[in-house]
């Protein structure tokens, strides 16, 4: 199989952009989190594709770490979303604006 590396980069960039789009448009905290996960996975796609391309395993191993960290991040994020809901009765990220300027 000989898919040029550019395609993977394009794929990952598309994923990244989709994630970014989600972050910019979604107000729901969970969707926000999911969008971030998409971006992280875009990076993982890159890492794995380039690991294949360069013929070393560094990228793949790093992708594993990235996944672990993303999971940890989500765990924290969910906790924060939980206390957010408790305090603001909503998971809309645009609601908490007590501090500004």
């Amino acid at each position, binding site marked *: 199989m000989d898919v040029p590396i550019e395609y993977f980069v394009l794929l990952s960039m598309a994923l990244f952009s989709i994630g970014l789009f989600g972050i910019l448009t979604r107000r729901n905290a969970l969707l926000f989190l999911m969008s971030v996960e998409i971006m992280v996975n875009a990076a993982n796609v890159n890492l794995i*594709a*380039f690991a294949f391309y360069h013929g070393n395993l*560094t*990228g793949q191993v790093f992708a594993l770490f990235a996944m672990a960290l993303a999971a940890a991040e989500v765990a924290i994020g969910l906790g924060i979303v939980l206390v957010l809901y408790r*305090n603001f009765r909503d998971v809309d990220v645009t609601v*908490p604006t007590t*501090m500004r300027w």
Partner: protein
Amino acid sequence: MAVLELPQWTALAPALVFVATALALFVIDSINPHTRNRSLLAGTTAVGALAALGVTVWFMLAGVGTPTAEGGLGVVELFGGQFVVDQMTLFFTTVVSIVTALVAVASYDYMADHTYQSEYYSLIMLAATGMAAMAAANSLVTVFIALELASLPSYALVAILKDNRGSVEAGLKYFLIGALSSAIFLYGISLVYGATGHLQLEAIADNLDGADAYGGLLGLGILMLIGGFAYKTASVPFHFWAPEAYEGAPAPISAFLSSASKAAGFVIAFRVFTTAFPVEATTAVIGIDWTTAFVVLAIVTMTLGNFAAATQDNVKRMLAYSSIGHAGYALIGLAGLSADGGELVMGAAMMHLFVYGFMNTGAFLFVALAEYWGVGRTFEDYNGLARQAPVACAALGIFMFSLAGIPPLGGFWSKYILFTETIGAAGTNGAMLVVAAALVVNSALSLYYYSRLVKAVWIEDPIGERDALAQPIGLYAAIVVAAVLTVVALPAFGPIADAAQQAAAVAIG
């Protein structure tokens, strides 16, 4: 000294001490769930931080990181170059551990009524571990892991006051921007990896010329890395979390984040950009000098931070913006790098971060004290505090004037050296003159709002009647120690400057 006989991995001892302390706290809490034994918890934390400090200082004295040619033990490389322990590592580990110790001591009083005691302290220790690891990270893998290790506990720490809307809001914003930034950072890493095929910093530098075909890709990757560092150091345009996070977080955590976390962010930025992307070689590949980006960021960051700070009413938020401004000053260290050196500028930036670590921690701890007293948040609320708490307010005066850069305090010397070195660097990079001008203008502006606080505390009359103020021993001790360190930084400035310059020189190689 005995360092020689130790196994290699012990070079990471400061970080290991931190993590061991965190685990010890978990064990303590497991033995006696939900323990409220503050002395034990805060004490363990402080002892752990001081132990890490002791080890670091011992390493420094023993000559770890000092080039062997000068009689030192040389730079220690670990795990195939994934970690490196050199002078810069030790320099910044010192900052992190001192700030951690101060924060732990101050939290003894500040968090007295809090439910989650052991969690709080162990999260601090884990974050400190991350920061110490950041100082030693020498590969984009370890950089990212360490960065996340520092960030994740920080999110939780900011939001730890679960019933306080401000704290939760701050945590949410910090987390969301942090998650976005780390995603961008990770993507940047993947692009750099794609362009060079390596994640270890020296290996990246060695393979830069092989990345000719991917100049744009590498450039975008580097830019995304800059984004990640900008987030960690609260620099424009990734600074948006900072004002809210610092304002909403418990004040000792604000101190911790704005001092230690920022310093750690800078150390990896310094290391990545000096080791992995040497200016000349990188410019050849990506077609542009990346210092340009830092010149722009430094100017914009310091200007935005100071300008926004000038009109704040809320003391904590003012300090938050001023912290952004100081990030701008420290960014000069990267902006001033050039093909034929720049270690002087970077050393000056490191000095500034060192001194800033104390004075800014102290300032935030004073806010912690004010919150402990419950006097309110605005400048007016602080009016006339000096009559009731002269010692703490004298310390505040020291912090403010040092932050503003008034002689003869430590902040003046670091800023002064930064300024002269910036001017010196203008020989190779004309834009540095603009940076120097911005530095001066912003310092002048900063004096306005710093002195405003001093004036409020010392000169103004209190607005209303105030009850007698308690004198929490932990907070007072931390503030006084921070003030003493700020003042002591003056006679000690020679050694600090030497250490910073040497560390920068070794890092740039």
